[in-house]
């Protein structure tokens, strides 16, 4: 028989071990990505695989920029994801304010109709959306990708939830002082909601950076591709094992922007996402 003290000690170690597993399992594929990118072709072919590169080299990081227009794709991704994020922030803050603080007929029906579309898989509307954007007469690739990404249902939902917590007295006081509604939203209310705005900003950037299906559908030439499409191209060109270092190097560089943005905003972002779940 174990004494109670021993039991708590054992369970403590079990908990520590479990947390260790929870840390290691997400990290292992990332570890594999890093070491594979540093391996030489001979190393990649070895059976059984080597768990540590014998003779690490950064050559793959140079090669990846030569086999696909990777630098260009970064520029494209930053432009597209950056613009979409800014636009979503702007439209969501304004719409969230109106849905959270105004009263008008049909407000809640309209709001919940928008929220419902959050749950619709994008594939459902892909055919007509493609046809519509093809026929707008707009030839600029960035604009074509961006059109449906200028507003976002989840953004409206998130901002409205946080707007409702802003005290009415504050808004009324600003009105009494003669501030216009636009001034109130951006100068009075928005600064109070910076955690929510940061959360939405990170969410939108990650979402649009990672989005694959829509750019795949609407973009025609490789020079317009965002990073995720360039990566898919890399994968299809280099299916042999010897190129795995190049593929892994590409995957790693392509993931860095979202990982960095997330880690920088981590504390606020995780809390914001958690609150969106609790409130939803």
């Amino acid at each position, binding site marked *: 028989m174990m004494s109670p003290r021993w039991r708590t000690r054992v369970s403590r170690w079990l908990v520590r071990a479990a947390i260790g597993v929870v840390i290691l399992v997400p990290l292992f594929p990332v570890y594999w990505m890093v070491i594979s990118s540093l391996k030489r072709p001979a190393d990649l072919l070895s059976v059984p695989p080597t768990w540590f590169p014998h003779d690490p080299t950064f050559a793959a990081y140079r090669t990846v920029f030569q086999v696909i227009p990777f630098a260009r794709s970064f520029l494209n991704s930053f432009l597209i994801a950056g613009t979409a994020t800014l636009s979503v922030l702007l439209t969501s803050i304004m719409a969230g304010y109106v849905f959270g603080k105004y009263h008008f007929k049909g407000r809640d029906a309209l709001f919940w109709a928008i929220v419902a579309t959050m749950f619709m*898989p994008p594939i459902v509307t892909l055919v007509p959306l493609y046809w519509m954007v093809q026929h707008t007469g707009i030839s600029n690739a960035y604009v074509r990708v961006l059109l449906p990404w200028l507003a976002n249902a989840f953004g409206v939902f998130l901002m409205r939830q946080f707007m409702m917590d802003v005290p009415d007295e504050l808004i009324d006081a600003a009105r009494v002082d003669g501030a216009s509604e636009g001034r109130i939203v951006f100068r009075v209310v928005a600064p109070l909601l910076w955690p929510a705005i940061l959360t939405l900003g990170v969410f939108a950037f990650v979402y649009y950076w990672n989005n694959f299906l829509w750019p795949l559908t609407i973009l025609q030439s490789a020079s317009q591709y965002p990073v995720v499409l360039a990566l898919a191209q890399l994968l299809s060109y280099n299916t042999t094992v010897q190129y795995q270092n190049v593929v892994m190097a590409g995957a790693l560089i392509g993931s860095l922007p979202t990982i960095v943005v997330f880690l920088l905003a981590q504390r606020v972002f995780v809390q914001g996402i958690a609150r969106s779940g609790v409130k939803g």
Partner: protein
Amino acid sequence: MMAASVESLGAPSRPAAPVRTGRWGGHPTHLAQQRRWGALMLSPTLLILGLFTFVPIVLTFWISLHAWNMLTPITKMSWVGLSNYTNLFHDPTFRSSLLVTLVYVVIVVGITVPLSILVGMLLYFPRVRGKGVARTVLFTTYVIPTIAVAMVWGALYAPSYGPLAQMFHAVGLGQPTFLSSPSSALASLAAFNIWQMLGYYTVLVVAGLTQIPGDLYEAARVDGAGFVRQAMSITLPLLRRTTVFVVLIGVINAVQVFDPVYVLTQGGPITSTTVISYDIQRTAFTYGLAGEASAMAFSLLVLLVAVAVVILAFMRSR
């Protein structure tokens, strides 16, 4: 909770309704001005979502009633009524892709939801170090592009020179097939969706756990209830709303799986990973059959609405 906060909104900020109190009160020019601002601030969102979300839903249904080759102008579209739907009903490919998607959703949700509750409890209750790091690391997988995740897992699944094959071999499980065999390909795709999404659901579970009052556990401990007993009679019942929400998000997320199928398996081997979104995309953009694809897409939407209604009804009940 939501309805309560809607009701509790203060009267002074009701521009559309006559305002009884407040200094600037019901001054007509103020009200008119505010209404104009409201319309102005709402219009960009309504315009974009209306044009690029609501109109396409209607168009999807409209196109689904026609035969239309996407490579030809839309004026060549011809009315076929519901025959796209009746054809779908007898189409073995569509049936198979529905079934494959269903199996995928069941695997992903069936494993992720219990696992995220377990991990959530692990990262919430015990007072040990490393919980914060674990939460961050766990969530990081969520922000990595699915394409990059698919590339890495493609390497992990490599036959003899891959690390997972090596691990299986080391513990005497023989030579696993992973993505190369129809019997294991779908489960292998599910595995890395679970790996990627677990952190997100765990964060939602932890948020749900913080809503459970601590004195309930206090009382249970006084009554001599152990950890398992507390979990069964306090944590799980009170976490029900969160659980249902996680199931809903999980189903919606798993139903859309497309990227890894497109880059890793192209629906194969045979049709073992031909999920519905891949089937729709291929039908429309490879075969050009926009009418059929739209009928598939609209059927998916109707099915999802039905599933969501059932899940939400489950959340509301009791």
